[in-house]
């Protein structure tokens, strides 16, 4: 049984600073996935640029000799890396919706059920949240 999306919306707006855990979780997941998607490329660049003073800053020197070389050498691994990034993006998409639902739930309902509890409650509301049913229609 899923809850109606209207239950997620606040009858009385709750100040955002009253739900720091949900807020932190929301931004943390986005930051995490941002770095997770960037890490393989950064790791590859670090490996190729080791030994040069300034490491990867040299890539961005005027002229772009090493930048062009990096693009050339990186081309063969770009496709599998892009595929992995898409998979990660899908996971981030799902997790991001759960985190957003938890944040909305926290803003709507001033109860103390903990972050995991909120995520659980919010997750159960995701289907109706996604169906875009309005508060009034309930």
């Amino acid at each position: 049984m899923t809850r109606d999306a209207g239950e997620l919306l606040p009858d009385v707006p709750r100040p955002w600073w009253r739900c720091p855990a949900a807020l932190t979780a929301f931004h943390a997941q986005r930051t995490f996935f941002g770095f997770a998607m960037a890490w393989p490329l950064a790791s590859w660049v670090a490996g190729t640029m080791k030994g040069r003073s300034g490491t990867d800053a040299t890539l961005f020197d005027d002229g772009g000799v090493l930048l062009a070389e990096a693009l050339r050498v990186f081309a063969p691994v770009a496709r599998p890396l892009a595929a992995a990034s898409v998979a990660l993006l899908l996971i981030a998409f799902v997790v991001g919706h759960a985190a957003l639902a938890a944040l909305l739930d926290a803003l709507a309902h001033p109860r103390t059920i903990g972050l995991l509890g909120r995520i659980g409650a919010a997750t159960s509301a995701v289907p109706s949240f996604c169906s875009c049913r309005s508060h009034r229609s309930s």
Partner: protein
Amino acid sequence: MQGAGRGGGRTGAGFVSGSFAGALTFLGLALVALIRLALSTASPGLMPADASAPSAVAMLPHVSEGVPVTAHAYTLEAALDPEAHTIAGSGTIDFTNTSRAALDEIWVHLYLNAFEGPETVFQRGPRGGFRGSGTASETGSINVKRLTIPAWGEADLWPHGASTPGEPADHTDIRVPLPRPLAPKETIRFAVAWDSKLPPVTLRTGYSGSFHMAGQWFPKIAKLEPDGTFAHFPFERLSEFYADFADWDVQVRTPSAVVVGATGALAEEKVDGDHVTRRFVQRAAHDFAFAAWDGFVEKRIVHDGVLLRSLSPRGFEQAASLELEVARRGLDLLGARYGRYPHPTLTLVHPPSSAPEAGGMEYPALITTGGPWWGPTVGIRSAELVTIHELSHQWFQGLVASNEREYPFLDEGLTTFAEIDAMSELAPGSSASRALGLAVDTAPFYRSRSTESARFGRVARSARDFTLGSDYADLVYGRTATLLGTLDRVFPGEARRALGVYARRFRFGHPRPEDLLTVVRQEMGDVAADALLAGLMDRGTVDFAIRGVTSRSVDDGRVEVEVEVARAGSVVLPVDVDVVDERGEVFRLTWDGRGDGVALRLEIASGVRSVIVDPELRVLCDDDLFNNTWTSGSAPVAGRTLGASSFVARAILVGVGP
């Protein structure tokens, strides 16, 4: 443009404005007046074929020095019908047998016939990845109606129905038997009449609406070699130029509203009802082209005795001003390097957006430019690059007229090096782009593109031997420029200087690859010449790599370091090796590059932190720049890359996520 490169804004914009424009216009008019005055007084300087018909070209003034008297002359009349896209042509060709042998034939190129059908050599040529991929939606052609030698009689010599040898569907390379042998040094005058039909703009030539780019629009005699043979060949997709220098006197008749830009100086303008006939004269050039359009906006400046005309569409004034400014500075830069531009005019044609394939082309004293109007706004230097590239062709093809078909690298390769070299001075560090905060040169991209192709084919081969257009672009343009750029970095400035010697020595000549290599050997020495020889002729490559670094303690706490450096490939060049100790002090060693590898030793006060081969990236043609380093520790975090890419990733998450 240098101003643009250094943050000074688009200096070309508004260049011709206000009182300055007025002064320049005055100078331009004064120059034209001088030309007209000189035309009325100068004496003939061309060897006349027929004293009863003096060549007007011979009266062209020596605006600048060093232009030789040529053995051939074209005196042509062209009537352009802008609605039918046809040119009715007639005129005379003075031809002197400059060879050692008597001639019983001549070969005539009718290159507009490349567009007469799908089975021509041109249309069947390699397309992949270079110079457009489309074919003309309508045909283009040239039909010689009559060719005679009046002094020998009225017989029509033209072999009607003849085709290119071995190519029945191609009519771009035609043999014309002579009724009697032409002795060495003997001159004859041909009278010729023909009709040309321009195709829709397809790779360099044709029409788009009322815009017409007339290249290869007339019958042109093939290059006569000293042994009496003609260097004749059908029109091919990847090459076209190789011809004798000649003098030109060409009258172009168009409706009055049409503006014409052409090879040569405007010598005369006659209005005839609603038409105008403009007469252009040019000494010592190997081709003649013209552009005609009623939509051109014209700008003029005079610089160092050269009248620079810019013809561009409305709305492209900023690009046109930029191109004029780049051409002005380019004349100085390239003139200083390769000898002064010798002609009195240079016309820059920026084709309309509907005719992009007419852009980026070179003819003597006329170049076509291109690039999007928004390029300068976002920091992409396409207009500057195209302008400098085509301007460089004024030397490497226009003045040093090598055989583009047999040795295309002498044409496009040297031009690309000259382009990179000039642009690196006009916009140091950002000659390709300064978009998105990244300053990028063109040389790295030529290098990247050519590195893979270099393993699969020689640079120095005929254009007809390339089966892929992309290989032609990568090797002829990119690899040649990368090799020369490498030499110029390893021996700072020496390749540029050697090329200057080559350009001056073979000015108005027809050099071959061995001539270039001889000059490089004389001016730069055996190491440079052998490296260039290997790179151009033998698929030569080079890859420096660090194979190992060892260190051991010796007396007084000092450390002896041994660096093993290897070189793969047949290009031998000296290279620097930097050893960085734990305190950050740098010790430079040099290896002459001979042999497969070397063990370099030195003593330092502390342990070694890192080693870098070729730290200043002089060896641009090094196959792999990422095996040139060694470090004692683990790789540090690539902070900039991580920061930038995580920002992009988060932006994507925000875009597609909740």
